[in-house]
């Protein structure tokens, strides 16, 4: 049985999916690739948008997302983040 992901790991997975798509990705792809329910994905996307990790663009047909500099920094520093939060018991 695999361990349940914590909040920081889910955020990492979402950001990775967006980054690996070289910029723009549709919400349905994020949902499948990061293994989340529609409701959970929308909540995470809202939070990530508010915190400046991703950017939302709307054209006539689609809603797409791209990763920001802050989002890339999160991915780069993820090991440090998880080490610190695990070691000091700041579980999310």
């Amino acid at each position, binding site marked *: 049985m695999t361990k349940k992901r914590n909040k920081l790991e889910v955020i990492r997975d979402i950001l990775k999916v967006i980054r690996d798509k070289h910029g723009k990705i549709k919400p349905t792809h994020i949902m499948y690739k990061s293994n989340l329910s529609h409701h959970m994905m929308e909540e995470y996307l809202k939070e990530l948008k508010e*915190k400046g990790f991703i950017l939302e663009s709307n054209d006539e047909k689609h809603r797409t997302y791209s990763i920001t500099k802050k989002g890339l920094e999160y991915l780069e520093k993820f090991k*440090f983040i998880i*080490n610190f*939060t695990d*070691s000091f018991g700041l*579980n999310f």
Partner: protein
Amino acid sequence: MENIYLVSNWFFGWDVVFEFFFALIALGVSFHSFKIHKLTGQRSPKLFGLSFLFFSIAYFIQSFLNFAIISKLNENICDFFKIQAVETLNLIGLYFHITFFILGLVTLVYMTLNTDNKKLYLLLLSTSLLFVALSQNSIYAFYFLSSVFLIYMVSHYFTNYLKNRQTKIILILVAFVFFLLGNIHFIFLINHIKFYIIGHFLGLIAYLLIFVNLLLVLKNDKKKK
């Protein structure tokens, strides 16, 4: 607040060094915690950083206060501010130390509750401060209250360990056990000189564990680079 600690002569001066060391480590934890908050935007590291910042301020005050007593600097400060008795200045410093320490503990406990209810935070804080301020012996009340909060923190970390089985959390769990033991010791120090020293040594073990914990995290980060 009528009782002042009894301190063994040989330890006079060492307590300043100990408290300064505690303050620096608490400041280091606070700094890195705020850094994590900046990277993640999450609430827990912000509150954790804030609580260690309060601890740090509390220890800087305590350290400065003890340094002022040794160096007789407190007499000059009293002259400057026209305070009649040196004891009054010492008590003011002690009150500041207690206030910041309670602020730190309440913030830490509030963080574990996973709520954004600010009214709850204010209720916890005001009840704690009033309990200490209105007690007949504020020092006893302070150490009693701190012990209750620390028992809660130890149980929080212990349940966390049982739930996640993460060995990384053991250091911080043991550190909080030493904090608690040091705090319980302080309750008895008013009549016993030795307890003041033992309390400081238990605190030293706790902060050394936190320091090692922080160093391990930073070392892993460097290794990765």
